[in-house]
């Protein structure tokens, strides 16, 4: 069976790379093929890469809270490009300052993300969800 492909990267001018590298290693250890865009990405980097490598999922991180600014309507270009079923995950410190967790989760779901992890320290949670989501196929989402 061919490996499932994940596009991974940090959005905005955020340069937090330690977590990015750990997520890459964790995904690879779980058997996925990772295309790591690393730090300082714009939204187009993600959907262009997803199209190019035919990715099953996109993992976006934001450590410095820039996510809110960059990710509005994140799903739309994926639909326009004909890859509407790409799984979209985002995690990190998604907004600047302290805000209600539920509000943050709702906001990013509105942006089109399938899974949102706000200040969730364990990447293992997202990987378990990924395995589950990929197993169910697009109809279940």
């Amino acid at each position: 069976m061919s490996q499932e492909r994940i596009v991974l990267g940090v959005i905005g001018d955020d340069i937090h790379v330690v977590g990015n590298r750990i997520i890459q290693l964790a995904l690879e250890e779980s058997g996925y093929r990772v295309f790591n865009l690393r730090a300082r990405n714009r939204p187009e980097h993600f959907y262009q890469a997803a199209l190019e490598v035919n990715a099953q999922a996109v993992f976006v991180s934001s450590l410095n809270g820039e996510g809110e600014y960059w990710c509005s309507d994140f799903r739309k270009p994926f639909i326009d490009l004909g890859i509407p079923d790409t799984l979209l995950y985002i995690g990190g410190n998604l907004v600047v300052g302290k805000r209600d967790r539920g509000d943050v989760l709702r906001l990013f779901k509105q942006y089109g993300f399938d899974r949102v992890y706000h200040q969730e320290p364990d990447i293992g949670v997202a990987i378990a969800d990924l395995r589950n989501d990929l197993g169910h196929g697009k109809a279940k989402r």
Partner: protein
Amino acid sequence: MLDSAGADFIPLTIDSYTRQNQYDIAAELLERSEEKQSSFLNGYPLVVHGWELTRELYRDLNKPVSLRHGTPDARLLVEVALASGIAEIEGGGLCYCIPYSEGFPLDRCLLYWQYVDRICAVHSTDEAPIHRESFGPLTATMVPPAIALAVQVVEALLAAEQGVLSFAASFGQTGSTIQDIATARVLRTLIRRYLDRFDFGHVRSYLVFHQWMGQFPTERSKAAALIACAAQNACVIGADKIVVKTVDEALGVPDPEVNADAVESVRYVFDRFRWVEPVTSTSIEAEIDLIESETVGILEAIFDLPGDVFWESVHRAFQTGLIDVPYSPHADNANRLVSMRDANGSIRIKDPGHVPISEGDLKREHGLLALREDLDGADPSFRRLLHDIGIMA
């Protein structure tokens, strides 16, 4: 304040906009800081302040000032620094690019630092050399000593080529005292050996120890203990200079009082716990042997790369992953090397990627890693990595 606390060097740390050559933004934020009476800059905007004001600032100070920054293109900054009377310049083409920049082309950075080395040399005399210092901690995140040491030797040679007369190699506290002692021993030996080999015997070399540069504990009591133990390690390795952290390291940019306290506590350790005899043991000797063999292997591989001039070979070494710095933000860093800690906390190479580590050395690395108990457990390695990175926090 640092002067009266007993510091021998007064650091001048540059703000992050100046480091990225964005002098107009630095000027704007300086203006805003003066207006609002609170600082919008995270360091001293030297280029904006200019040399006259800066020279005035240090007029009554009878100690050398050290420029600390992280600037890939430091040509103008260093010109202003030298005009200001600053006699020590930290940085280098590798150490101020790979850990500090996401996309600054390394070949340009090497050339710009060639310029910096040259102007430092031009303004040096035998009695009053402009001192150059490299930044060995790099990303300060699980960097195997051999990588850091290879970078130090390369930068010593690049500086010496341009006529620099006084050069300090440095490294960051590793998290293992055994490895600190071994790293210092090998670094001192190799810097001297390679400078002499390429006819730079006249270049004076020194050793600088950086206190823990990784994630710091947030509790001040633990941070104080870490700082004191790092000072002790600096004594044991006989460092010529130590770069001091503060108890507020985890919390942000420290204020002058906290800085002075840190210098005082390190001074206290230096005065009370002097170390006169070299410390050794079988594991230290084995570590020395391994680090030296690996570093020499990397350096000889770099020398073997094609290039009309040395920096071209160095650039190729980075492009091809012979130099691979873990957790570098730089887009061109190979990111193939994977490192982990062994049972005594020393940083081990698990997967060398394209770094030329010999089969025998890799076997030794894996042998030491295997002694760590949890390594065969069910815990996935990314959890162990997170633990290894944050070992002091």
